[in-house]
């Protein structure tokens, strides 16, 4: 397998989020200081720069099937940008709290942008009208994730997770959890909903049944979760190893996880979208690629001058984008 540097670009500050456009033409990168930069996916050229948010940007997400980029920031606003024209399209104020989490519905009839700011949560239409504003969550919303089929959005806060129906806005389920939650992930087949927790642990619910599992033993809080496209492997941060649970069948309880070793705390995990490679990054700047099902799972290693702040695979799985704490964006080409 070959891992080669394809291009590199620089932002003005910490790379807080990365998002590949669905057509594969561009990579959007958000700086923690505010500006959003669009890079050409193949050549790394700077296509345009958007001002982003006063006080800093937090998250970005491409609307499915279009050149509309959504962003959320410290100014308490969701903004929509017309990437083709390089222009601001609309602003949706959410309140005084930071907009920290954004996600477009990928499944389902039409795109809906789920956004949270503090305890506020809303569904926003692509035309920037508020489709539904929900009652305040009991505590600050700390993660959100759409069900892969788009029927509901899972919203996490200290104390639990609530599933809000996409169409009727009803609370479908509420799962109690007695601690802080930092990350949420659905398995692609929708069988598992997983939280990465403050306590530190991961908790798995099988929403179709009453099964729930608690996997602990982490050194620190679990902030990153990623499922492989086959819904078998769940990769987690929280230790000096990328800890990978086998979620097939009845789930990981009673199974030893794979411990994919780094030399410093793991700060990112990301499975490919359609293939089975796992990228993991650690605080020392190391990046490793793994095939969890192999006897010798390590496939490739790269080292960057600074720790990865975010990881993103391109939609065809050929390019891996890495944004670092020191404002660099690296795009690696991965050929098997």
């Amino acid at each position, binding site marked *: 397998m070959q891992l080669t540097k394809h291009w590199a670009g620089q932002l003005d*500050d*910490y790379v807080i989020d990365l998002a590949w456009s669905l057509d594969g033409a561009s990579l959007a990168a958000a700086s*923690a200081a505010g500006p959003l930069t669009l890079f050409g996916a193949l050549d790394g050229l700077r296509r345009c720069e958007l001002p982003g948010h006063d006080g800093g940007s937090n998250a970005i997400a491409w609307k499915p099937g279009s050149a509309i980029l959504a962003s959320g920031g410290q100014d308490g606003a969701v903004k929509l940008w017309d990437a083709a024209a390089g222009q601001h399209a609309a602003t949706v104020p959410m309140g005084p709290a930071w907009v920290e989490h954004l996600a477009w519905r990928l499944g389902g009839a039409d795109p809906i942008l789920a956004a949270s700011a503090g305890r506020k949560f809303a569904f926003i239409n692509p035309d920037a009208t508020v489709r539904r504003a929900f009652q305040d969550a009991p505590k600050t919303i700390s993660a959100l994730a759409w069900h892969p089929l788009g029927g509901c959005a899972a919203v996490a806060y*200290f104390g639990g997770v609530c599933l809000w129906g996409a169409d009727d806005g009803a609370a479908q389920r509420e799962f109690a959890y007695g601690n*802080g939650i930092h990350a949420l992930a659905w398995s692609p087949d929708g069988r598992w909903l997983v939280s990465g927790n403050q306590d530190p642990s991961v908790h798995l619910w099988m929403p179709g049944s009453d099964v729930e599992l608690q996997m602990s033993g982490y050194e*620190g809080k679990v902030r990153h979760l990623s499922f492989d496209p086959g819904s078998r492997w769940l990769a987690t941060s929280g230790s000096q190893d990328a800890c990978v649970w086998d979620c097939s069948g009845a789930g990981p309880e009673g199974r030893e996880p794979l411990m994919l070793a780094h030399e410093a705390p793991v700060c990112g995990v990301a499975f490919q979208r359609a293939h089975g490679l796992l990228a993991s990054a650690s605080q*020392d700047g190391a990046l490793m690629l793994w095939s969890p099902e192999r006897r010798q799972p390590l496939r490739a290693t790269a080292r960057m001058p600074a*720790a990865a702040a975010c990881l993103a695979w391109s939609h065809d799985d050929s390019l891996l984008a890495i944004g670092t704490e020191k404002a660099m964006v690296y795009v690696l080409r991965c050929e098997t």
Partner: protein
Amino acid sequence: MDTDPIPVTVITGFLGAGKTTLLNRILSERHGRRLAVIENEFGEIGVDNQLVIQSDEELFEMNNGCICCSVRGDLIRILGRLLKRKDRLDGILIETTGIANPAPVAQTFFTDDEMRRNFRLDGIVTVVDAKFAATHLDSDDESVKQVAFADVILLNKTDLASPSGLDALEERIRGMNAVASIHRTRDCNVALERVLDIGGFNLGRATEIDPKFLEPEYPFEWAGAYRLPAGSHGLVIGHADGREHSGGHHHHHHGSENELDVAVAPVSALGEAEIAAALDSAVAVFAGPEKRVENGGMVAPGGPLKRLLLDGGNGRFKLEVSEPGHYLVFERCGEEPLHIQVGADTVKPSWQADYHVAHEHSSVSSVGIQQAGELDGKRLNDWISALLRTNGGDIYRMKGVLSVKGATRRLVFQGVHMLFDAKFDRDWGPGPRINTLVFIGRNLNRAALTEAFKACFAA
């Protein structure tokens, strides 16, 4: 990873005490440094171009209801976001609301791995309103905790309080928290090196404690020795020229102004051992029942405790001594002087001492233990674990530098409620290895803590 942790200063204090004044002072004097402020009330910062974040003090309270497990979720979130910058910040200031309990703030920096790795809780600064503090401390549990948790206490608005009121307040606060440094200020005018980078939670500085506080507490404030012939003498409270208090020790009244508890005990000589034995028996007498003595009545050496009933702070009693020799007179407290008259002459004490008084008006206090020797690591660990399990709710903070048998380096530790950090720091080097252990908390039993600690010494 290779960068120094960012220092965090927590500013607590009651509403109106002057927290914002202190914050603005720090920001205007430390301009040019990259400081971020996490404040609870919006728009108070009067200094431009500052990174100011408003927080809602979101508590993560655990199901078991234990305050010792609570952390501040908003700080984990906000500080986590503040780390997301290319250039590190130089410091963080956290202002809490007047009603905030400092424990979850401190515990956040003990329990969360990211917070521990990237931040260093430098100190808790509590701003106290010199005029109204006594009322707050009487009525409000959170203000007591803010004082108990503090590394630095500013007695602010001194211009609005009387000197005697300030003295009394400082003494009261010192009785609760013997470890904090106390500064008297107007408009929070204090040198910034006294509030920033103080290393209050720095393990290496755990022994920088007011040495006086390590002395045991006694139920009496003063003792004096007199050489007396046999006979009936005068014990006079008030009226006359009086004795001199050494060291400007300030006495204040516990209880009624017209009652004064005294005990008189014979002592064979004025050597250290004899006085120590007499102090111990006087402690027992003060702990026992008292006998009320009317003005003009008779006082004899030995038990029980004599409660002298005064008239306008004055009184004259007969002290009956059957054997000539040295007598120690112990006094609970007294604004009026005490003196002994033999015939027409006032006898000067041949020896006297002031004592650190156990404060009865606040159940929050400090206990310091200092003792040379080597500890058994397992016994120490078993004791601390059991102590925190059962009494962690009452122990707000503890610090210690300990000598463990077999270790060449000092074991330093620092705790908040049930959480603590311990590590070996530098070599003891030559000289005695003296253990120092400090507890600040509620309902602390000095005798029991001291005894349990002594049981941890290696055989």
